């Protein structure tokens, strides 16, 4: 008997993973790595917000899942960082004014600078309109039914390598859930496993927190036992009842591939040619001359053009038109893939997860493309759906044991565990074991509880997968090593200050706790009890 076939060709589910490591240095007036957040705000988060609000205004049916990692939320809510972002915008405005003068003789460059000036107007307008509360604006889109906001592990710890001892993983998850609840007034239903890092048994921890779904890379399904009957076009339930969605490999290649991906198009903006590196010192404004080395200004005037140093000036109108063409191509391919699926009661689904920072930052035209995809999909009858809404509509699925995997290079744990960064794990595991004792001692007295809580914050920050990633990537290695060591050193200092009877040792100055806490005031409501 053939099942009744749905007229719906299938679903397209975007999942954007928004995350940056917790970087906040009040001890310095300027700190280069804080710019990661500011660049992402200007180029990614605010443009995405603008695109979503425009779709909402135009009554385009659209829905997607957006992950906001607890560290990202904490930074976007942080008063100091908001104040510094305001300063960053002012500095950028100053530089653009200067550039309008410098490029007035070059019509083509002048047009690009004017484009950036208008774009900055828009960003500042959004910043003022939301009073800097970008997270709140995304929350409103969730309330309106367009976004499904997912959480992530507290500090983006790579869970397969933190599972010893198990309470380290439990704390990463529990603190994330509590943070989400505190911020949004509701419990999260879905979680993004950092780097899609899954190991068998993790679903039991998710179930404990009533987290109902997560995303894995394609090969977690390919290697699943039994093989999921509908491949990656439908989720499976783990034995714990938590659903797993698999990344669609073809959607990934279209966007991620360095050779054939859309972002390689010659019309798109070249990421690397930034005037922050190219101009003389006197041509830059003070903000972009801070420190010993140059840094990007986010003003990039050249198109990719091709494999040449002779770049053409960037032409935003052409790039936007190209983004729409690529959006149509993407929708066509997904529809074709969906129509190739055998008929079934439940329409097939394509899950397309990406790092949110890809859109607008790495791939400048990404937000335009995404908006165009939603508009084209709506015209073509391709329904976009958030993961949570999909599970609400279709809740009967096959059961399978999916395989340990990640979406990192090679698909397993090796990017976060190799000759360059393996030294981190003995220390993280040992500290996590100690944390249980610190929590047990700390919760006995009201005055020592903050000490245990701060020790937990330091441990959580040391566990961030970003540090191992940066070390392996060989980018800002010294910063990543320093962050890991500093957090562990502070953890050890706080642990040593707490006597087994639950009192603070006489040698420890309580002012020191305030100093440490002021550096990393993340998760203010953290209860060390979570480690017990």
């Amino acid at each position, binding site marked *: 008997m053939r099942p009744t076939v749905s007229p719906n060709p299938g679903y397209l589910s975007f999942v954007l993973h928004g995350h940056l490591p917790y970087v906040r240095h009040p001890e310095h007036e300027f700190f280069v790595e804080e710019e990661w957040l500011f660049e992402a705000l200007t180029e990614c988060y605010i443009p995405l917000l603008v695109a979503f609000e425009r779709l909402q205004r135009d009554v385009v049916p659209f829905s997607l899942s957006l992950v906001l990692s607890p560290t990202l939320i904490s930074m976007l809510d942080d008063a100091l960082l908001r104040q510094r972002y305001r300063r960053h915008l002012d500095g950028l405005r100053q530089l653009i004014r200067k550039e309008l003068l410098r490029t007035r003789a070059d019509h083509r460059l002048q047009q690009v600078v004017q484009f950036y000036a208008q774009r900055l107007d828009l960003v500042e307008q959004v910043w003022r309109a939301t009073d800097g509360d970008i997270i709140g604006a995304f929350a409103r889109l969730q309330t309106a039914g367009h976004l499904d906001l997912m959480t992530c592990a507290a500090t983006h710890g790579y869970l397969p390598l933190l599972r010893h001892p198990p309470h380290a993983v439990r704390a990463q998850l529990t603190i994330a859930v509590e943070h989400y609840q505190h911020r949004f007034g509701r419990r999260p239903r879905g979680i993004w496993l950092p780097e899609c890092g899954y190991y068998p048994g993790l679903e039991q921890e998710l179930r404990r927190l009533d987290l109902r779904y997560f995303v894995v890379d394609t090969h977690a399904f390919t290697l699943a036992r*039994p093989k999921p009957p509908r491949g990656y076009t439908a989720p499976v339930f783990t034995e714990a009842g938590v659903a797993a969605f698999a990344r669609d490999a073809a959607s990934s290649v279209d966007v991620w591939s360095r050779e054939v991906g859309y972002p390689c198009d010659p019309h798109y903006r070249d990421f690397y040619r930034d005037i922050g590196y190219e101009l003389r010192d006197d041509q830059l404004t003070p903000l972009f001359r801070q420190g010993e080395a140059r840094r990007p200004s986010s003003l990039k005037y050249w198109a990719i053009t091709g494999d040449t140093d002779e770049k053409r000036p960037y032409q935003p109108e052409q790039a936007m038109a190209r983004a729409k063409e690529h959006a149509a191509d993407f929708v066509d391919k997904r529809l074709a893939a969906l129509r190739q699926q055998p008929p079934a009661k439940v329409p097939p689904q394509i899950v397309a997860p990406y790092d949110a920072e890809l859109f607008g930052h790495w791939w400048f035209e990404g937000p335009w493309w995404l908006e165009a995809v939603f508009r084209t999909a709506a015209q073509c009858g391709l329904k976009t759906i958030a993961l949570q809404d999909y599970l609400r509509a279709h809740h009967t699925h096959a059961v399978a044991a999916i395989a340990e995997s990640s979406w990192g290079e090679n698909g397993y744990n090796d990017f976060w565990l190799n000759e360059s960064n393996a030294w981190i794990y003995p220390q993280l595991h040992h500290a996590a074991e100690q944390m249980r004792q610190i929590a047990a001692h700390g919760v006995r007295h009201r005055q020592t509880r903050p000490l245990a809580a701060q020790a937990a914050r330091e441990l959580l920050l040391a566990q961030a997968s970003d540090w191992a990633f940066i070390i392996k990537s060989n980018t800002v290695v010294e910063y990543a090593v320093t962050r890991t060591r500093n957090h562990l050193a502070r953890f050890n200092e706080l642990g040593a200050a707490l006597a*087994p009877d639950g009192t603070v040792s006489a040698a420890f100055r309580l002012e020191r706790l305030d100093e440490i806490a002021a550096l990393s005031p993340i998760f203010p409501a953290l209860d060390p009890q979570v480690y017990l």
Partner: protein
Amino acid sequence: MGRKEYEELRKDELLDKARELGLTSLSRLRKDEIVDLLLQAERRAARRKAASKKTSKATASARTIKKTASKKAATTKAVTKKATSKKTAETRATAKKTASKKTAETRTATKKSAATKIAPSRAGAPAHAEKRNERRAASTRSTVSTSSDVATSPAANRPATALPPSDRQIEQAVQQPLAGEAPTTPEAGGVNRIRLLARDPSWFYCYWDLSAEYVQAARDAGGKALALRLYDMTQGAEYRTLTYETTCDEWARAWFLPVAANDRVYIAEIGFLDDRNSWLPLARSNTARSLLDGQQASPPLVTRTVSHPIDQPLRTTASPQPTPALEASDTADWLNAQLDSHAYDVQADRVRGSSATLLAGERLAGSRLPGSRSSAALADRVAGSRVAGSRVAGSRVAGSRVAGSRVAGSRVAGSRVAGSRRGFQTLIGWADDTTPTLGHTLTLGGKTDAFYPSLPGPGDHAVAVAAELVLVGRTNPTNRLSISGNRIPVGPDGAFSLRIPFEEGLGSLTIESEDDRGSVESLRVWFGTLNEANRQP
């Protein structure tokens, strides 16, 4: 006693001596092997006695050293601005973890072991944590093994009907002394620990931390070279297999170990080898399962679907049972064991025209019918039949004309019996030596055929065969069960069973179990040819 004296004893006398020295489970060994172990045990006992005197003196001084180390770590300096602000030029590449993450580089790892020099990780640990670890070490000490466990073949020793243990069971088992083990480490306190992590399908990573007094004690006991061992524990702690051994420098604190086989459970041990290559273990790791590589699973034999509405709490269910992930050769044993344990009172007889023939539960099919069989009889019959993964009636069919129903595909998909964990337990087997006593017909989908084929014609050597599928399962006794739309009674213990003529075209069965709340869980069981075309839902 010397070797000569031991060799003059009978084997049972040697075993008695072995028990006195704490060595057990040696009965399968040859006499000369037992003598070797006895001599080794005697030497170890003598060394241990000598070592315990030395280490009790060493402990006090070792603790003093630890305190000094803690103080040093506590003075670790915070990072200066200078250290961090230099990185400006590198920043642009960093925040963009996006692109490099997705490049599909070919795995370049070689099978060459790579030692990583890692400073002792415990420097700076608070003193109270060290005490706790000392206690832990004391318990670890009792679990260390001797050299007698090397390279035992699990396949040779594992009971025929045993299921592979779960990962958790293995983890628990490795915390217990293994058969024949005697502690070889000193009585003094100290911290020994080793951790094993799966890195990718080809490599494990392990790191360790050994206390100076343990290392010294091992040296005093004859240890010459620090070494790492990797054991396959998949079949259980008693049947572990040494898959890799390497000596390593004493300054090393971590090592990458090659994986012998995917999807197996391993532990690592660190210890010393003495002059005779005897193993003096110091610490044993956690268990870790090697990762699956690009080998795809077979198409499912059983597809189970469940319903979990996201706005309703997840149903409370029984703890998951271990998945019987059996190899083809295990399946017959498992089937027999299941059938034996179910203690079926078989009362099937010729039931023509009924919707199904039931084997399970004396209250199921009305009154007890004459000709019913005992569970032993059924087990014997099924044991003689081929099970999933085997050719069906190959030799019997070959060269004969097959009349009636042809054996569809002559293979069951996947050679694997997938047991469900929660609502059902199912197993599937073949019965290709059906006898008239249990002959019956089965109706599914409204079709009724005589199961036994007719002879194709007269002749002394005429033969006709057919195959039959036996489906045995278990669900909650209060559940309502149906198979492909036919209501199937369930026994008081939740057991159910079904025999189905195996005909070409029998693609799948859908088994649905409905609980008293109306929640339905379904399994789809696939049979027949491995033709993807008939697998579509």
